[in-house]
């Protein structure tokens, strides 16, 4: 290694790590990033981006099936799974290359290898190309090693019939029947994709509703929609004894009412959460405390070891790329001693799920807001009453806003329907700027857009909705 002493070394080049490296380089730090697999991490290679590419294919396919509804005819409508997957991989590749370019542009040293803390600012790197170990040192070290799919005894992927997100992203065949275990963002997006392409999908969720982190009302609407699209959904249910055999998978499913039965599927996808990648990093030796599977950090991402920081999934939930990137900025700017660095405000982290219909939210759910002792004003506006939604032929969904009745603070926003993942940022900006209902009401929303529903929802919370 030509340069072995750095101001900052980042371990892991996902959306947390590479953003940290860029920001550090911008601030004049001599920066290196160590990546064991590929730049961009799970997000770009095996997560956010390739799934969006798959889901886009599914969306267009679904629209084509409804062509007649728009006065169009499309002849024989079919898909080529291999081509869909190929496109998804190409999208990933393009973006991964983009990260490489960004590293070069910012003069960040990229080290392909596996890093381990050796204490006192030293890092041992086993290089990918030749397996040789070298040691670099750095004043500051950021751990951004991310997370991987969780598995349980009896629920273990075999990579053949029992998939994790990784195999599910590159299916060699279109399963006729598919079991999805877990209805969080990952599970439900795959369920949505395979369902759209004709698989008979069964979703099993342990909690009493699908997408359990979302507002209850949104969960209920989502479930109704999924079922209408042909999915079978079991909530409050459990899967045990997931077994792979020659023809597929057999699973013992215990339903909410206690009845259990063994069912056969072509494939199963395990989406029962994630585990932080804390192993083999020399954390213990370096004095970095790990608790509940995650690296323990303070509000500025500092671990218990001086000069060692952790960001993103490895430092705890929510496991979201944009949360990791934001922590990266906070962490690096704090290291650089910049002014006005504030801890992450968890209530302002939006969450998006790209199933059909899409789901997006920020802040407190109605139940959580109530529990926190707020007196509430709730606004709701349905897609059915929005001109643009009707013109688009997307009349399913609604936008719900939760306000503190006393201060007018926007506590939360919960959306389900077409394009809500692109709309949510309006509320996120509002929350970040600490608007009250008054500024949202004074805002002019363009007509005709789906965003008008965001306005109407706010008006509705104060009994002033116009178009309903």
């Amino acid at each position, binding site marked *: 290694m030509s340069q072995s002493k750095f101001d900052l070394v980042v371990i892991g080049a996902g959306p947390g790590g590479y953003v940290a490296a860029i920001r550090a380089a911008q601030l004049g730090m001599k920066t290196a990033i160590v990546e064991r697999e590929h730049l961009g991490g799970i997000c770009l290679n095996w997560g956010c981006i390739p799934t969006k590419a798959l889901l886009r294919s599914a969306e267009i396919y679904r629209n084509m099936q409804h062509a007649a509804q728009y006065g169009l005819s499309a002849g024989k409508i079919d898909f080529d799974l291999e081509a869909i997957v190929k496109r998804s991989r190409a999208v990933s590749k393009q973006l991964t290359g983009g990260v490489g370019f960004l590293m070069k542009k910012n003069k960040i040293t990229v080290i392909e290898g596996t890093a381990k803390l050796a204490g006192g600012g030293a890092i041992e790197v086993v290089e990918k190309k030749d397996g040789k170990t070298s040691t670099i040192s750095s004043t500051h070290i950021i751990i951004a090693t991310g997370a991987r799919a969780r598995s349980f005894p009896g629920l273990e992927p075999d990579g053949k019939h029992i998939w994790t997100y990784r195999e599910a992203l590159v299916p060699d065949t279109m399963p006729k029947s598919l079991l999805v275990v877990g209805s969080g963002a990952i599970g439900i997006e795959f369920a949505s994709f395979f369902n759209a392409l004709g698989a008979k999908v069964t979703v099993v969720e342990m909690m009493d509703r699908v997408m359990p982190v979302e507002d209850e009302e949104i969960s209920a609407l989502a479930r109704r929609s999924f079922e209408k699209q042909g999915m079978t959904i079991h909530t409050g249910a459990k899967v045990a004894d997931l077994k792979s055999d020659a023809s597929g998978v057999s699973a013992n499913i215990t339903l909410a009412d206690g009845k259990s039965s063994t069912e056969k599927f072509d494939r199963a996808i395990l989406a029962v959460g994630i585990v932080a990648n804390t192993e083999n990093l020399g954390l213990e030796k370096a004095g970095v405390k790990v608790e509940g599977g995650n690296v323990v950090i303070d509000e500025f991402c500092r671990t218990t070891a001086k000069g060692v920081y952790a960001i993103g999934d490895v430092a705890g939930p929510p496991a979201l790329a944009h949360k990791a990137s934001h922590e990266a900025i906070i962490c690096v700017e704090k290291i650089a001693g910049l002014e006005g660095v504030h801890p992450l405000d968890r209530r302002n982290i939006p969450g998006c799920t790209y199933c059909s219909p899409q789901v997006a939210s920020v802040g407190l759910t109605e139940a959580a807001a109530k529990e926190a002792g707020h007196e509430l004003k709730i606004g709701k506006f349905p897609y059915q009453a929005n001109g643009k939604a009707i013109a688009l032929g997307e009349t399913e969904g609604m936008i719900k806003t939760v306000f503190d009745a006393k201060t007018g*603070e926007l506590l939360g926003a919960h959306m389900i329907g077409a394009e809500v993942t692109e709309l949510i940022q309006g509320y996120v900006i509002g929350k970040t700027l600490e608007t009250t209902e008054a500024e949202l009401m004074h805002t002019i929303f363009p007509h005709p857009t789906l965003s008008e529903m965001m306005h109407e929802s706010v008006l509705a919370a104060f009994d002033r909705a116009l178009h309903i």
Partner: protein
Amino acid sequence: MPIPILMPALSPTMETGKLAKWHVSEGDEIAPGDVIAEIETDKATMEVEAIEEGRIGKLLIDEGAEGVPVNTTIAEVLTDEDEEGASAAPAEPITPVAKEEPKPVPESESAASATPATPVSTPEALPAQTSQSPGEGGKRLPASPLARRMAKANGIPLAGLKGSGPRGRIVKRDIEAALQSGGRTVSDGTKAVGTAAAVGAGLATANKAVGAAKQPAGLDDREIFSLYEEGSYELVPHDNMRRIIADRLTLAKSTIPHFYLSIDCELDELLQARKRMNEAVAADGVRLSVNDFIIKALALALQKVPEANATWSDQGLLKHQRSDVAVAVAVEGGLFTPVVRHADLKTLSEISNEMKDLAHRARSKKLAPHEYQGGTTSISNLGMFDIKQFDAVINPPHASILAVGRGEQRPVVRDGELSVANVMSCTLSCDHRVIDGALGAQLLKAFKTYIEEPVTMLV
């Protein structure tokens, strides 16, 4: 109901003050005219007298408390009718908020200068303002809408808070912190604005946002301290005067678009005239200084070019009729700018006597606020320090200031011939919002003419 005694505004521009000394204790009987407290303002120490008769119920501000915002309730007077209920509800600070205040006076620099010597007593003259945060007056502090609303609901004056958001924006967490700290000055300040009758009947309700002038933040303390080795300096806390100078000149330099015009004035005729005049009035104990001539000349020049005798305000230009010339007087730890009013109408000896008295009392910090407030322009003369030429910072709400250098013998060329003359360089700083280049030049030219032909000052 107990009558609140409010932190008085001893001058139209006073924002905060130090409660230097209590002359009464809780339970003391007071009668109108009794001295209750001493307030140290930006420029002077003043006594606060009781207006009502009664008994001091509660002293709400500690002696020595600094930065007490104007109109904060500092104490309460119990009247006879309070006495019975007093023990049941001991001195609960009354909570009339600004809304109930009969006539909120929108404070602005221009308003202050419009009636420099007289307290603001005719609020009707100014349009009522329905500001969201009454305590702020004309300047809007950066604050999030949520913070604004929470502050209002909890009666926390935004002016007293330090914003932790981008560019000093006051955000929710700052309000929460203020609520949590529950600092007395904070919470008391909130319930402050009571009836104008208590103390402030004759006092302007000037409470402009303190923080506003500090908006363009420089290095923060942590950064500054990190640059110097500990023990290599002595830390001298700011007094009110230093803070006011810092705030107002920062405000001036960051909000007034300055430009500068320089001119040379020949002084030979003036020096001769002065010599003869001084000989003539020597018996009366008068001794005219060159500065007295400068005051008179600038006052007359403003009358000759009245467009330049103005003040910027958002509502419009205040075109002044009087030439009230403020003169910077250096004092220990800062400076005062006592004002020579109607300087155009006064004789040189009147100006001379008045200036001597003002300067003397300025140095002993005995000026009354009305003697250094207002004015329509200023003069800063550093000639006695051998300064040849400099640019002065405009003293708001003025639109100009004349920086006067030393009068000295210099070579001058007249009709192609080199000769020697006494020459003084002057630089006029102009507020470009009020005075354009040509107008400033006209003013300076008129000034030069009076200086170079002093006889014209006498007609």
